[in-house]
């Protein structure tokens, strides 16, 4: 198993390089001259030169690429053009809030979504199934930023039950601050995970080994939870990775709505201020996040499924 994990970790290296190259291409080549884009048409030649020197834009492209990859991998994102703070420090301050939001939302989504999917699959084509189906249709359609805005208006502004901004200090205060934003993201997630669990469970419930379990004399609860659900959780694990990343993308808007600190909030305000090094840092952090989550999903597979473990 250790060898398999090592192999998978090694396989992530070219992916990281490819992702960084894509980011590099996007940042340096697509928008034309970054110096002009950032400083605007009315910048003086001295300003442009200074910026180019600072960002290394006066170097050959290949060297720029190498320097970029080296800097990103060593988390050297430069300093903010506005506040002159190191970008890595800004990210360090904001990242915990984003991770906290994503994880709490994912936890809530699992907590509601998996039991909902089980309920729907066990009562296939009956009332609970229709209910879950209706819920997931709405969950897929309603934009998270709309739901977040509604929750903010009702529960924070009108009823005053929850704070309207900030991330909180200390564990309980932070949980109090993260609750409403996480609930917003969990809504969509619950719909997704519920439907995924339903589909996966229905498939495993039709498998031969489930029939074997019944023929052995296992009662329905045991059949569902011991035999079918464990096997159904394999596809759910992949879905969980996808959904974690979807939540991360959703967190950008949610941080804006609830005035929470976070990478999304950092990135969006940097875009508004054209703070190029911060934009670059934020984009790269998102990219790292995606690569890491995909890696974790694959590693989870190795741990859960003895068949994959055996291929080593």
């Amino acid at each position, binding site marked *: 198993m250790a060898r398999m994990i090592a192999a998978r970790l090694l396989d992530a290296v070219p992916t990281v390089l490819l992702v960084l190259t894509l980011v590099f291409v996007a940042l340096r080549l697509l928008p034309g001259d970054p110096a002009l884009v950032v400083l605007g048409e009315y910048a003086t030649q001295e300003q442009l030169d200074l910026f180019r020197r600072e960002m290394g834009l006066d170097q050959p492209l290949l060297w720029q690429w190498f320097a970029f990859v080296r800097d990103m991998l060593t988390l050297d994102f430069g300093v903010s053009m506005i506040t002159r703070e190191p970008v890595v420090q800004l990210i360090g301050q904001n990242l915990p809030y984003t991770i906290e939001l994503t994880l709490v939302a994912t936890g809530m989504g699992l907590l509601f979504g998996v039991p909902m999917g089980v309920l729907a699959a066990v009562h296939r084509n009956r009332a609970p199934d229709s209910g879950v189906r209706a819920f997931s249709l709405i969950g897929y359609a309603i934009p998270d930023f709309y739901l977040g805005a509604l929750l903010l208006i009702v529960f924070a502004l009108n009823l005053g039950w929850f704070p309207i901004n900030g991330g909180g200090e200390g564990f309980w205060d932070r949980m109090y601050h993260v609750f409403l934003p996480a609930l917003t993201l969990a809504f969509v997630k619950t719909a997704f995970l519920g439907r995924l669990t339903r589909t996966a469970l229905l498939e495993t419930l039709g498998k*031969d*080994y489930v029939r074997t379990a019944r*023929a*052995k004399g296992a009662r329905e609860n045991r059949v569902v939870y011991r035999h079918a659900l464990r096997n159904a959780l394999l596809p759910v694990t992949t879905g969980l990775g996808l959904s974690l990343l979807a939540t991360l993308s959703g967190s950008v808007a949610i941080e804006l709505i609830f005035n929470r600190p976070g990478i999304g909030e950092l990135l969006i305000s940097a875009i508004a201020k054209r703070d190029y090094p911060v934009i670059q840092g934020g984009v790269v952090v998102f990219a790292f996040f995606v690569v890491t989550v995909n890696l974790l999903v694959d590693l989870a597979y190795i741990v859960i499924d*003895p068949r994959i473990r055996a291929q080593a």
Partner: protein
Amino acid sequence: MMPEPLLAVRDLVVDFGKPGAPLRAVDGVGFEVEAGGAVGLVGESGSGKSVTALSILRLIGAPGRIAGGEIRLQGEDLLALPAAQMPEIRGRDIAMIFQEPMSSLNPLMTIGDQVGEALLLHQDLDRAARRARVVELLGLVGIPDPASRLGAYPHQFSGGMRQRVMIAMALACHPKLLIADEPTTALDVTIQAQVLELMKRIRDTTGAAILLISHDLGVIAEMCERVVVLYAGRVVEDGEVRAIFHRAAHPYTRGLLQSIPRLDDDRHRLSQIPGSVPLPGRVKAGCPFLGRCGLRIARCAEQMPPLVEIADRHRAACWVTAGARG
């Protein structure tokens, strides 16, 4: 009066499809299995033999449902029991072995846990006793060094070994009846012979009755005393194995016999019965074998021939060969 049979299936009817337009997969099937006896259920795919087997354990899943008949285990009608009582009977009184050893074991559970689960469900044993019994069972079915294989997963076993595990699991609680649904079909020929050998030994040593389901009359002849031939959800012939082999009455049974490969006679080409079993719901009045039968007469298209006794404990349903009188 004859002693009560271990299992008596009477007039079993199983429908698939919507209630308004049922598709009849099993239509009035009846047979008996004596305690310690061995009965074979033979027919092509679509003949209703697997559905019949699953019905005995009441494991027919939606959209199928048992629409009529009786299934008596030692006199008690299983179809009249509340559904919640069936798990007590499954695995304890009646155990089942399935066709696909590759997919019939849970891929995420160890062999030891899967065999042990049958014990856990029906017997009050502590962990150590259960473990000991699992080792004993795995040894019984011929798995080498069973104690070291308890923690192995199904994918680490070959098809034949998995089928042995299935058999061990079925034997765990000393069932009175063992239903084996095509237990060797998915295996290589040499492995088939080994597994059949194992099943014969089990029949002789455990005293469990066996209901063997197969499309292969040759396999059934090796194991069973009696044969029930199913066609399109109906019993078309039944009798002792010897009687069926020597004096098969139904044209369908004769066709099945001709399709058994014979090692002593390679001059004859294997013959195959032309056509296939009509789909449930497509059978109209008359004999379901009509379209594939070389002996048909006018009456066959009009009326379904009844199952009539043609010799001692030998019945067939054919207007022509069994001289059925309607």
